[in-house]
Structures are given as C-alpha cells and as structure tokens.
C-alpha cells in the first residue's frame, strides 16, 4: 500500500514537472511563432535588391577593383536599414501602405504622378529582370526563347494561385538560394583576411572609374519601389505596433544579409577575375562564364544559378509591388488574398507587367541596353521623390504619434537620403550624357544582346 502511494506521488510529481516543462516549451514556442509571424517582409525586400542589375554591378566591381570597394558595404547597409526601417515603422503604426498615405496626405494629383512613375520605372526594371533570366539560362546553355516564357509563366502562376502565405514561403526559399553566392565565393578561394581588412578600413581611390563604380553600387542597391513593397507587406501581414520590435529586427537582418551576399559576390569576382586580370566584365553572365575556367565549373554554375534565382525573384516581386502600389493609390481593390473578380485592375496590371516585360526581352534585337539605362534613370528620378515623401510622412505627428523620427534618427536619415540622392543624380548624369564612362559601360549598359 505504502509503495503504491509513493509510486503515485512520484508519478504525479513527474507529471507536474512534465506539464511545467511543456508549459515553458509552449511559451518559448509561442515567442518564436510570434517572431516568425512577423519576419519576412524585411528579409525579402532587402534580398530582392540584389537583382539582375545589382549582381552585374557587384561582379563588375569585384572584377575591376578587387577588394577595394568592400568598405562601402557598411555605410550602404546603414543607409538601407535607415530608409527601410522608416517604411516598416510607418506600415506598422498607421496600418496603411505608402501609396495610401501619399494619397491621403498629398492629394490625388501627386499620387497620380507617383503612380505613373512607378508603372514606367517598374516596367523597365521588370525587363531588366527578365533579361537577367535570359543571361543566366544562356550560361546553362538554355535558349532564352525557352527560359524567359517559362519563367514568366512560373512567376505568374505562383502569385495568381498562391495566397500571401504561400507566396511568402516561396520567396523565403528564394532568399536561401542566395547562399549559392557564398558557395561560389568559397570555391574561388579568396584571401579572406585581406577581404575583411578592406571591408572595415575604407580605402577611397579618387579616380573616375572607381567613383563611377561606387555610385553604381549605391544606385542599384537602393531602389525606390522596394519601400512601397516593404510597407505594403507589413500592412498585409497585419503587423501591429506591439510586434514592431520584431519587424525592426526583420528589417535589420534583411539589410545585413543583403549586404553579406553583396560581399560574397564581390569577393568571388575579386579573388578570381580581378586576380587573373579579367577586369573588364560586362555582365553577371560574363562573370559566371569567366569563373568556370578559373574556379571550376561549379563556381560558375552556382554563380549563374544565383543570377537566375535573383532575377526570377525580383521579376515576381516587382510587378506584384507595382500593381499593389498603383491600385492602392488610385483606389482600386488590391491584394493577393482577393480573387480575380474582386480585384480585376490589380491582376490585370500584374499580368500586363509580366507579359510586356518578358515580351520585350524576347524581341530579337530589342535595344535592351537602352531600356536598362532608362530603368536606372527612372530609379534615379523617382528615388528622391519617394525618399522625401517618406521623410515628410514619418515626421507627421498626427500620423505617427510618438513614433516620429527622433532628432538623431532624422539627422542620419536626411544625411543618408541626401547622399543617396546626390549619388543617384550623378549616376543618372553619367547614364544619360556619358554612357561610355568606365564602370557603367562595363556593367549596366552593355548586355550581351546589345
């Protein structure tokens, strides 16, 4: 009898401990679940920055200047984080998209012009992404007449038939594939110590091609459409002020991971192409092809795969974001969680952008390089407008309450914005008046289809 009592007591003690353990486990799981429920927009948005144009620029930077541009990544991370964080904060606090806010605070006409700019610039950018798909597939010996239509179809289907949750998961997986650049970099056997030193200690060179490349790096990394996308995703995920902390981490992690990938791309090209004197790389696919004899087939293929992934990724997000922005601003119904019949304008815009974007790439002898210039110029004109709208809105106390920028943050944000504006203006100037300027001719303006 006594044994029985002891046994039951022991058993209930065990049970209680198990319960407590499971309770603690539950709390922990809950915290992770809350975090995961918020995470996504920041990581996705920042990674999409490394799109086809971006990768071409980074490869060229590594090939032409070796490790010497690596220092710029840290200030760029800060600028990226500061500007994205403001959008995240606005989305979380107001629960409204950026174009919604512009419409409500600045009226119909400003909104309309922002929207038209969005449509044109993003169309050019979409073309750039599909030409990235074409380039990557040609490294893998697949004709662009096969790969581009397939890519367009795949991108379209994912978004049309997926809900936001599914689409986001697909996008998160795409983010993981960026790690292929890390593998490429390791296969290239770079001088890690030297690379690290160059990242931390700035070594500015005052010659024209170097500065042009620097401008190019900034211009391709911070694109105006990403702000709209970021804010809209936080709104669509219904992240509230309570989860703002997580949203901030998401944005920070996104900005850093984006720059880490850039780091690996530059290092990969610096360790191989630059070391062997192949400094004149005109596109990401050139870089991939040149890598094959130097660092092995795998490094080259991984590089091309990364480009394909990035282009596909950006090609699905860009039209999506654009359709969102335009519908929101002009008052049409929008959103992936709506059916085609509920939001016809949204789906028509989305489909139209993909079809036209992919279609232009497929036109034989299309002046793709011109379109790529225009996409850069468009981004350049649009960026200051968007940044200024963001800075004006974020400081509105009636909108943001206690969440307006602090003085310190404003100083950083305005400085970063003004530097970005000046640099993009410079990039535009070069793109229009002097497209043969060293760095640019090597990266953005000469595609293999020229």
């Amino acid at each position, binding site marked *: 009898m006594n044994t029985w009592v002891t046994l039951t007591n022991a058993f209930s003690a065990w049970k209680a401990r198990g319960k407590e353990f499971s309770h603690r486990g539950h*709390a922990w799981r809950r915290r992770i679940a809350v975090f995961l429920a918020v995470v996504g927009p920041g990581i996705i948005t920042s990674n999409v920055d490394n799109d086809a144009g971006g990768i071409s620029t980074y490869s060229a930077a590594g090939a032409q200047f070796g490790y010497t541009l690596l220092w710029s990544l840290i200030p760029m991370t800060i600028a990226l984080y500061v500007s994205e964080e403001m959008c995240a904060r606005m989305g979380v606090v107001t*629960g409204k998209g950026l174009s919604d806010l512009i419409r409500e605070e600045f009226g119909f006409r400003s909104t309309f012009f922002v929207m038209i700019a969005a449509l044109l610039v993003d169309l050019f950018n979409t073309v750039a992404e599909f030409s990235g798909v074409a380039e990557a597939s040609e490294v893998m010996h697949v004709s662009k007449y096969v790969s581009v239509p397939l890519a367009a179809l795949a991108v379209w289907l994912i978004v049309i038939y997926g809900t936001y949750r599914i689409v986001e998961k697909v996008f998160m997986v795409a983010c993981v594939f960026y790690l292929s650049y890390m593998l490429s970099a390791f296969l290239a056997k770079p001088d890690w110590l030297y690379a690290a030193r160059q990242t931390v200690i700035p070594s500015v060179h005052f010659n024209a091609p170097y500065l042009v490349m620097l401008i190019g790096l900034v211009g391709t990394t911070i694109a105006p459409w990403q702000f709209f996308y970021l804010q809209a995703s936080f709104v669509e995920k219904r992240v509230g002020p*309570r989860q703002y902390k997580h949203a901030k981490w998401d944005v920070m992690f996104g900005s850093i991971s984006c720059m880490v990938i850039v780091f690996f791309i530059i290092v990969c090209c610096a360790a191989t192409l630059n070391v062997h004197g192949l400094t004149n790389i005109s596109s990401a696919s050139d870089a991939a092809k040149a890598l094959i004899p130097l660092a092995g087939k795998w490094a080259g293929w991984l590089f091309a795969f990364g480009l394909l992934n990035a282009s596909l990724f950006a090609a699905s997000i860009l039209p999506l974001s654009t359709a969102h922005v335009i519908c929101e601003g002009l008052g049409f119904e929008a959103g992936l969680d709506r059916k085609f019949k509920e939001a016809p304008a949204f789906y028509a815009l989305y489909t139209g952008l993909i079809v036209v974007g992919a279609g232009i790439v497929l036109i034989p002898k299309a002046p793709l390089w011109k379109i790529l210039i225009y996409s850069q110029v468009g981004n350049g004109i649009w960026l200051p407008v968007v940044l200024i709208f963001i800075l004006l809105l974020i400081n509105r106390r009636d909108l943001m309450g206690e969440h307006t920028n602090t003085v310190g943050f404003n100083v950083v944000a305005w400085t970063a914005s003004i530097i970005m504006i000046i640099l993009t203006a410079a990039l535009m100037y070069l793109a229009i008046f002097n497209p043969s300027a060293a760095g640019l001719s090597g990266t953005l303006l000469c595609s293999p289809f020229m």
Partner: protein
Amino acid sequence: MVHATEVLGAEAYDSLGNFVGRVKEMFIVPDEQPNRISRLLLGRGRYRPLVARFDQIESVAPGRVSLTTEESALELYHPNDSWLAVQKDLLDQQIIDTNGRKVVRVNDVDLADQRTNGNTELRITQVDVGLPGAVRRLLQGVVSPTGIRRLQNRLPQRNIRWEFVNLIEPDPLRRVKLRISSDRLAQLHPADLADIMEELSPDERQSIIGSLDEETAGEILAELDKRLQSQVVEKLDPEKAADIIEEMSPDAAADLIQNLEPDTSKEVLEEMEHREAQEVEELLRFAENTAGGMMTTEIVVVGEDATRGEVVDYVRFHEIPPDQLDNIVLINRDAVFAGAVTVAHLLLAKSDQRMAELVSDPLLSVATDARDKDVFELFDKYNLRSLTVVSENKCPLGAITVDDVVSRLQAQA
C-alpha cells in the same frame, strides 16, 4: 450640380463685387444639418481667413462664389473640430459604403445647389469613387471645365449616396462630435463588417469596435482573423474587452483569449462575470487541436424520458438562440450521454413522443482529447451538423458544430 473640387479653390466675391478670397475648405456642421455645406472657409493669403455662412452665399458656379453680404459682415475663422471638413476629412480618404459593404476611397463629392430665398444652399448628394472624379481632379486647371465635363460624361460612374456613406474617424471623441452613427454598420452582417474592418488601419478598427454595442462587437470579433482579434482586444481596456467577450459564445471566447498575450488574457478573465469566465477557463484547459478545444459548452441537455412537447416548451421558455439548437443532447438518469436528437427529427415528431425514440443512429460522441482530424472524419462520414463531446465518465460537456469544423478546415487549407 457642382463638384466639391470645382468649388474648392474658387474665387469668392462679396455683394459689392469685391474679391474676398479663395475657398480653401467647406464645412458641414453635423449638429445643424447632416448634409448641408454650412460654412465656406475663405483664405486671404497672410490675413486671417474668413468664414461665409450658408445664408451668406448668393450663388455658386465652378470657380466662382458670390456672397450676399459685404466682406465686413463675414466672421473670422476659428478652428472647430466638430465641423466636418470636406477637403481634409472626405476627399482622398477611405469611407465605408454601407450599401455595397465595402471600403472605398473618395475621389470627389457631388453637391446639389438649391436656391432658397435669395441664397444658394449646397447639399452633399453623393460621393464619387469612380473614374469621373479621378479624371476631373487630374485635368482640373489643365483642360477647360466644359472639356472635362464632356469627357467625364462618357466614363462609367461609380457614386455612393450620402446616406450610405459612413465616415471612418479614428478618434472616438471626434466620432461623437461629428455624429457619425454606427447604426448602419451594426445592421450589416457581422461577416461583412469583419471584412470591412480588415481593410482599415488599427486606429480606425478600434474606433468602430468602440462605437458598436457589445453584442455586435462580439459577433464581429468572432469573425475577424486571429491576429486582428488579439490586436483589437489588446488595445481595448480590459473592462470593455471583458464585456464584449462575455457576449461571444464560450468557444469563440476561449479561442480568442488563447491568442492574447498572457497578461492581457489574465486581466480580461478577471474582469469577466464569474460564470462566463469559468466556462471559458474550462475550455482553455483543452489543447486547441482537440475536440475539447473545438467545442462550445452552450448546448441544450434534456432527460431521455422527456417528450417532444416538453422539450419545445423548455426551449421556448428559456429563449434559447437557434444556433445552439442543431442537436438536443439526451442524458439518462445517471447523467450519462444517451444520444442526440437533430432538430429536423424533433420538428417532425409528434408532441407526445419520447425523446429517446428520436435519437439518431449511431450513438456518436467524442472524448475531449480526441484529435481534430478524427473529429473531421466523423463529420464527413456521418454527415453531421453537430457532435457531442463527453467527459471521461460519459457526461456531455459540449458540442462541436459544423461551422467550427468548416472554419478550421479552411484555416488549415
């Protein structure tokens, strides 16, 4: 008919024909009239702006307003937030179309001009949410007004009558001042209103929930998606939250409370009436993906020896709401589950028939720890509308209804 954007920016002249200023804003004073443009704000550059009252307006044409009085008779402007500003509060803002049950954005506001004893009164007839308003605002000042009118006549119209417009004002105090009533919102189906709420910003949602009575608020809360539910509840003060949650069915309340931050859920439970709180707490013991976590405790339990007539009287007497009547649960003398009778069988039975004779075959029930998948299978296999959940000693505790099954399956899909 004139459009608000044609009057905004118009030049105003007094009775002597002197230029007074430009129309900067139009105000409705809801305390006086719900749809009359009651004041015009006339901006005069660096001088203090003036206000023209509705009875001081002689005529209104696109781009030009004439007044019945001299400039000196106009009052100085003092901001007043119980006035509804057409430009600031209406144009480009979102409103709820209570007729179409949607959230839409205002492109322009249509005004009817009525001449009454020497002056012109402007009344809002409808808001323009379609292309004509958009085109007008884009082209104003670029193309001539007649040109714009000709163009917009060819465009498809999308207007909402002013009676069906429900303004979204995030500040609850101002909501009261502007006399924004929630009557029409409360008449919408909770599911529709929940959809509308999902499109609004957090402050706007809060303001609407706060303006509805507890019962309606509870119904809407139950229809919102999980994340929004907890966001809304966490922003309410616990007392109000408790009042609303008490109105919800215990299972919906338990689901909601489960998703709250631990501190909030404790506070809310403390504020709730003892009996309701207890019911909810009992449900909270069960894991979410078990039969216990899915069930509602609001069921009708009668002895198996009762007759049909007695049961109907019982239901009538206690005014049991129809959504609890999918099944009547029977117990025997030992309070053990003895079967369930569907309302259809009850309806067709004779008044003196014993409940035990009407029991559906086979005798189905699940334990509280049964997994949700097994529950779904039972519903599918036997085409159930409701399934009784029993305790370890077979006493009925609650029931799972088909609508809960459907929404869970939908959430998992």
